[in-house]
């Protein structure tokens, strides 16, 4: 993988790799606890040591999410979060953090509501680097993929334990940024996958692509992150952080920063232990 200087996502993975560790990607829901407080939470993620940010677009019907992120979606929507707020949060983040990749993650309907081209151009202008859409599989790429690629935004695909070797090339077709491996057949923040199954899956995915592989769903603790960081290019933590925002609300940033720092330290210790 060659890191292009204009590609923040590739650069973030390359920087982590140069330091001999996996990249740390942190998910939070945009507008949680309110749109006005999201910026401070994002800053805390960066200060704690997150290499990439996944910003969830809140949706009324988060079908792939467990209780923690469902609750975050509800908090954000109850606080009146609109699509324009998500764009404003992204724009402000990009101004404060010119080099940290920002990925929007969410569901198809809010993304296509005003048209795929409108969405792709609006998020590009807001400084967004990539999109993860839970319910647009490769079979429905036409819905969003062409618009994103034309705007120069990565369409980051998900691979899962049910994605077999025959299917993988189709999943990779048109995907960019990195490949997100969903380590459990299930929803976010619930059970944790066996380390051996993750190792086997990452090896399988690596044989099919040069894109970095980030592993998420069910990764909560520094110990888990360190173990997965040994085999993957990136580790994604979401529900554990979102729980802190749920518990501390507007006072969450210092708690979030400390937790992210503990995850980052765990990834770096792995390097020392090598």
């Amino acid at each position, binding site marked *: 993988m060659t890191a292009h200087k204009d590609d923040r996502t590739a650069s973030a993975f390359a920087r982590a790799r140069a330091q001999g560790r996996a990249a740390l990607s942190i998910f939070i829901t945009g507008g949680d606890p309110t749109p006005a407080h999201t910026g401070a939470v994002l800053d805390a993620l960066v200060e704690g040591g997150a290499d990439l940010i996944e910003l969830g677009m809140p*949706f*009324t*019907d*988060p*079908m*792939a999410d*467990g*209780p923690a992120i*469902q609750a975050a979606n*509800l908090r954000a*929507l109850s606080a009146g979060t*609109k*699509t324009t707020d998500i764009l404003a949060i992204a724009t402000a983040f990009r101004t404060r953090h010119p080099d940290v990749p920002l990925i929007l993650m969410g*569901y*198809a*309907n*809010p*993304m*296509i*509501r*005003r048209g795929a081209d409108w969405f792709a151009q609006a998020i590009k202008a807001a400084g967004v680097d990539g999109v993860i859409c*839970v*319910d*647009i*599989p*490769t*079979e*429905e790429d036409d*819905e969003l993929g062409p618009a994103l690629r034309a705007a120069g935004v990565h369409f980051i*695909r*998900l*691979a*899962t*334990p*049910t*994605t*077999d070797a025959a*299917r993988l090339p189709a*999943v990779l077709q048109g995907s960019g940024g990195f490949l997100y491996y*969903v380590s*459990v*057949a*299930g*929803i976010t923040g*619930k059970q944790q996958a066996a380390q051996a199954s993750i190792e086997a899956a990452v090896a399988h995915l690596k044989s099919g692509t040069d894109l970095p592989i980030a592993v998420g769903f069910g990764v909560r603790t520094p110990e888990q992150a360190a173990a997965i960081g040994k085999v993957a290019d990136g580790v994604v933590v979401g529900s554990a952080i979102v729980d802190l925002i749920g518990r501390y609300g507007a006072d969450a940033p210092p708690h979030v920063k400390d937790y992210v720092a503990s995850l980052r330290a765990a990834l770096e210790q792995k390097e020392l232990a090598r």
Partner: protein
Amino acid sequence: MTDISNAPNSLRTQPDERGHFGQFGGRYVAETLMPLILDLEKEYRKAKADPEFQREFDYLLRHYVGRPNPLYYAQRLTEELGGAKIYLKREELNHTGAHKINNCIGQILLAKRMGKTRIIAETGAGQHGVATATVAALFNIPCTIFMGALDVERQQPNVFRMKLLGAEVRAVESGARTLKDAMNEALRDWVANVHDTFYIIGTAAGPHPYPELVRDFQSVIGRETREQIMEAEGRLPDMLIAAVGGGSNAIGMFHPFLDDKEVELVGVEAAGYGLESGQHAASLAGGFPGILHGNKTYLLQDEDGQIAEAHSISAGLDYPGIGPEHSWLHEIGRARYEPITDDEALASFQHLCRLEGIIPALESSHALAAVEKIAPTLGKDRIIVVNLSGRGDKDIFTVAKALGVEI
């Protein structure tokens, strides 16, 4: 199941090979489910071509469900309205009291073929839950029904029925705690149990191939109607009318007639307190195309694509979306869709009780209310067939409450 016409201009050949009805339908699901959905489609194609599958389906419809059910000339209703001749397709006489069982029989046979050992389903009022629990008992497969916690409170008799039939009923506490949330939770369960679980979706919606296979299983309604009206009148009807929530009873009745352009198709959406109130379930009249629960279709939603809560007095119509084939038929103008309010449906519910001695489901009462508006405007030589999709015993508590009666 339907013999798909090979005529190039046929409207009955949808969906395309990717599951699209025009711009609608499709397979908008998480990657985890995608291989399973593809597998289901493959298995369904094989089953459709397998005479043994067809034989078992037909056998159970005849001897277990009680088909064919009658096409009944509603003479008193016809005379009262003073216009077109009205026939009722008596789906309410099926085992479990509604059309839902047709689809459940088909899907449980598919589940058995695929070697699945666990059944899940979502339910709103509980009718699909009861039908699913029924076939799960018949086939001795464990079954979990997801039902919004609010619906569990409102529909205790059906909750108890499902439990009597051996199903586990899981109350869903997320969101507004109604049908939409039950469907989200069923999808969450499915994604975590793909290896052994079959999801019996209750309506002609969801990811491909569900809209197609539910339609095919329900098309027995239209095929029987066709034969029966030919026998009774020697010609096709002028109009078919059916209520539309997700739209499985309507598409089941309409589909065998799609290429008969002289037969007008009227779907009836639930207008709740009225379209202008914003509290309704009329996705076509008040919604926009979008993506939810695996398919692209008309949805009640705001300008940001957030899904709105639907409202209807009929729990079976209380859903913010509609099956994708209806969205397509609406867009190409082959079917038209009329809104009927809670109050209009309640009035027609009572009329049918008094005029014909039949207690109709509140869902079907929406179709009957449309008949009351349309029949008087047509001549006595015209024929309308209404899908009486379910019986109303389940609704007597709701109706009593709406009429201010204590029972």
